[in-house]
């Protein structure tokens, strides 16, 4: 996981690998601590994430909810096809903004 601060109270986060039980266990504390305490609106690059299971969905939903309560946003972008399908099956794509490209994600973050 890499974090790049952006202008304003925004950040880009690049996740890599698998958001399965082991992967979420490794990054969840850092992911939450990076964004939630200061209500940092974030765009999350999923292009290098090749697997998301329910624990990964739970992590993203709970961070999106915590940020929403602070008036901040979570925007996901560039999911691989199989990952996008999981978001759709779990109805997450109706709740969290997902964009195809980084520029669209940035626009959604700032809009």
């Amino acid at each position, binding site marked *: 996981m890499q974090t790049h601060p952006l202008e304003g109270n925004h950040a880009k986060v690049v996740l890599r690998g698998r958001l399965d039980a082991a992967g979420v266990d490794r990054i969840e504390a850092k992911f939450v601590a990076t964004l939630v305490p200061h209500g940092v609106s974030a765009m999350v690059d999923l292009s290098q994430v090749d697997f998301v*299971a*329910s624990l990964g969905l739970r992590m993203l939903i709970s961070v999106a909810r915590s940020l929403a309560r602070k008036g901040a946003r979570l925007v996901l972008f560039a999911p691989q096809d199989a990952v996008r399908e999981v978001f759709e099956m*779990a109805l997450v794509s*109706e709740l969290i903004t997902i964009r195809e490209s980084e520029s669209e994600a940035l626009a959604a973050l700032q809009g």
Partner: protein
Amino acid sequence: MTVMQTIEQVIRVSGDMDGFARAAEALRVVLDDWQLAERPRYRVETVFEEIVTNVIKYGYTDDRHRVIEVFLTRKADEVEVAVEDNGDPFDPLARPDPERPISIEDAPIGGLGIMLVRKMAGAINYERSADRNRLTVTIPMAPAGG
């Protein structure tokens, strides 16, 4: 060879999350060997993860020796994933999927795993016999649409 043979593999999972991580590695070796297409492979991995982690986390309320076995069967047009455990009787299909949330505030974080399994499965069946739960999920090789 013109006829696809049925191939079976068994993965035994020790009953903790470290054991799960090793079992997930073993699954990936089997799936590499089977050379499944991306989508059925993703679905088999998801079904394995969701069901087995559920059994490990919630399937046992005492300290009995845990026996968790996953039987993988590759057929010509589908893969069958059967998870057997000696935990407490539990039919994950008895619980309805969470309701469609209207906002992130209402979004459920429980029940997502079994919801994914239901949507990915071609067929799914629960049995309890000889003090074991057996959940069998079939994944079509070429699922149509979602």
